């Protein structure tokens, strides 16, 4: 049964650093994610029921009153928690922590009890309420590296697992380690302000590894003991 763990060698710990001081809330990451991960567009009616499938959203919080307003943008992907609350509640091992430090989601195993969604304090898990269709010829755009999810399964941000795998395969072919910056998630790649930095914190020279030591670092809802892999850097001077 060791085959479960064979898709990672445990050499990496992928981490996303989100610099809130840089994030300007433009939402490019959201659409990049949508394009990369075959995320269905649900349409107006389902959107009005808040059933959008986006894996990454930019939350916006207001503080104060006109004209002394302060706004905080908070990009919210799956936090890939170290002690993920979503994992132990799954009755069929559809989600587990892989040796690369990611919350892997095995769509094929999922039966759709949705406990993981309830237990996620960040609210980043999405459920396939329906069979979503791609109107022709939009299906031509679908990324062949990412499966299109069936009705009745949970899905969520994977830290662009397919890109990680591609990067690792390329590195393996050339018999070297993965270089910093070789693997970037779609959101990090598209982010105009460079607010999202993706990397391997086990590589001490990586940008992410350096940034997670920043004095501005904090993690969301860490009081739940979830140990997220997404580290935020506090905004403001």
């Amino acid at each position: 049964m060791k085959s479960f763990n064979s898709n990672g060698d445990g050499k990496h710990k992928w981490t996303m650093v989100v610099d809130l001081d840089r994030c300007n809330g433009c939402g490019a990451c959201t659409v990049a994610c949508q394009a990369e991960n075959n995320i269905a567009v649900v349409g107006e009616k389902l959107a009005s029921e808040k059933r959008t499938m986006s894996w990454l959203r930019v939350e916006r919080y207001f503080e104060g009153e006109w004209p002394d307003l302060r706004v905080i943008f908070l990009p919210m992907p799956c936090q890939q928690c170290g002690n993920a609350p979503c994992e132990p509640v799954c009755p069929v091992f559809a989600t587990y922590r892989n040796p690369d430090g990611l919350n892997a989601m095995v769509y094929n195993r999922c039966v759709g009890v949705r406990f993981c969604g309830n237990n996620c304090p960040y609210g980043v898990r999405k459920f396939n309420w329906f069979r979503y269709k791609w109107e022709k010829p939009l299906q031509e755009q679908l990324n062949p590296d990412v499966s299109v999810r069936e009705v009745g399964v949970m899905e969520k941000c994977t830290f662009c697992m397919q890109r990680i795998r591609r990067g690792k395969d390329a590195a393996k072919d050339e018999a070297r380690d993965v270089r910093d910056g070789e693997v970037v998630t779609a959101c990090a790649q598209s982010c105009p302000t460079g607010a999202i930095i993706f990397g391997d914190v086990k590589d001490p020279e990586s940008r992410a590894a350096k940034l997670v030591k920043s004095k501005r670092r904090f993690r969301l809802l860490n009081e739940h003991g979830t140990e997220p892999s997404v580290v935020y850097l506090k905004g403001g001077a």
Partner: protein
Amino acid sequence: MCNAGCGIMVRTVMGRAKKVEGNPAHPVNGGGVCALGQAAVHQLYHPERLKLPLLRSGPRGTNAFKEVSWPDALARLADNMKKAEGGASYAVVSNPHDAVTVIASKTLKKMGSDNLAVQGLSAVEGRRLAAASALHFPDMAKAGCVLMLGSDVFAGEAAAHYGDRFGRMRRGNESKRGMMIYAGTRLSLTAASADRFVAAKEGSLGVLALAVAREYVSLLKGRGTVNPKTAAWEKALAGNADASSKTGVPEDAIKKIARDLYEHGPSAVIAGDDLTAHTNGAQALAAADFLNSILRETADDKDGVWPPAEKLSGYETIRKSTGVPEKFAPLGPLLASAANGKMKLGLIIDSDPVQALPAGLNARKALEATGFVAVFGCFLNDTTRYADLVLPDHQFLEAWSAQAAVTPHGTPFFNAQQPVVRPLYGTMQSGDAILKAATMAGFGIGVDTQEALLLGMVGDLRRNLEGVPPALDGKKAWEHVLQRGFAVASAKPSSAPGGSAKNPEAPRVDDPLFTGLAPDDFFLHPYTAANIGDGRVSNISWLLEMPEPMTSVKWGSWVEINPKTAARLGIADGDVLKVETKFGSAEAPACIYPGIGPDTIAMPVGFGHLDFGKHARGRGANVMSIVGDVEGKGFDYTAFRSVKATVTKTGKRMELIREGNPKGDYEGEVFQL
């Protein structure tokens, strides 16, 4: 899709475009791509794209067409070109720097007309095109403090560019954090990221610029910074004592801005629509320039906030070699003369003037009165309703093209673009179609295809591009540029004047004028939302489903209203409001939005298409249809924020589709940020 000229790369698998990625080396976007750019692949595979030329079969205004063959369509276009020889033709394009614009411009000239206009050309953009001054190209990334005068750069065009520069400014260097102050009339997306938001009255930002300048100069004096011009500046700015009451910004807030600009330097001012979209816009822009000139002259600019004049001169070189027009016809007079029946041929290229231009400009009437209207584009839209011929264009991922432009921080560049996928349908590139028809009509410009034109361009250009070996011939040089996607124009010593070397002259800023129905009407504040931009992409479901960052509304338009005002008028979130101006009325649901002043309402542009595919048709209200014609002076632009509106409840309700919870977004402290 947009005019910013970002460098993009497209990941393709088996001949299918999958994903748009930024070109990390490109001077505009530096590797990032905005949401609109990402959606290019969606546009490419959009189910509602046009596949064959369409000839009008019903009355105008109905979008009733029959399909015709390309030879037939081109013959008709050529016929009408012949008929319109002389000054009786015009063209509207969306991108001033694009190859198709060059073709349109050259063809029109051949036909004896110089009526080439750009849709939606804002004052800032117009000024930038005509710029000879580094004053308009401060680099935010290098600035220690930047004052945004109503410029919502993160939601407008070149969002990726400004995002990139902003990121660098803030945390390019962990030890030195750039500061951003935003002065404006609405808490825009850019204002949300600013360190300080200063709320000013509608149309008063020019006055604010002068007031800040005055405080800045007095600071200079007080702290003993010696500048020969200080006295002159002081004199020029002497008459702005009542700025605080005119702008609604308290005196100490103005002083604080000046102090920040002084202390955190090098500083710069970036002006935007809040400043210019009023009747006093030209003066206000001059005021902002004035402030910029002071900042530039007093700055210790070792970081290079201000581009050197010779760098900018490269733009003139590539502009000339590529044939990008220097000046465009002002839209207002052009459309007015078309409306008077003086135009026999109109070419509308990749733009939608009927939907996107203020109702006061009467684009619809102009098209109706034009003898023959040919529309080039990928989709049927509001403008094609008035077209005689619709010529389906390649989506840009299928097309050869090039742009010659200058980045907002003053780097002139030349973009070379090749098709990433084979054309899906029997479409033809607009440039090719125009060239073919023009050749048939006898107005040929010497090249047959857009691709040939591009080769010709590079032939002229190659010696002016950095990194292109001079030994390469035109074709090789083009391929060389294509490999990188772009080339930066090399700087040459130039005699062009850099900056405002002249003695300062006191800019004067008049009070803004407003067309309104009653004195206590609301200021109407149309703005560009970050999700669908100016409306050219509002048929793309990815973008419609992306929440507008500030309101988090998706799939529809809205009227932003201050919570207190709403409470006073008994308006609840989702109540459908009727917004009425002198020019008409529009209905949209209310969105209680804390980031807007109590005397203002704001509406996003780009909605309310009459026809733009099933996603855009009839979605929301088109705010431009109720915006008027108070013409600005000095540049070609419209003072589209000079309208006042009344707001009434219709009694209907329409729940806004929001991503976030309107109550919950005030409870951010849960995260202990």
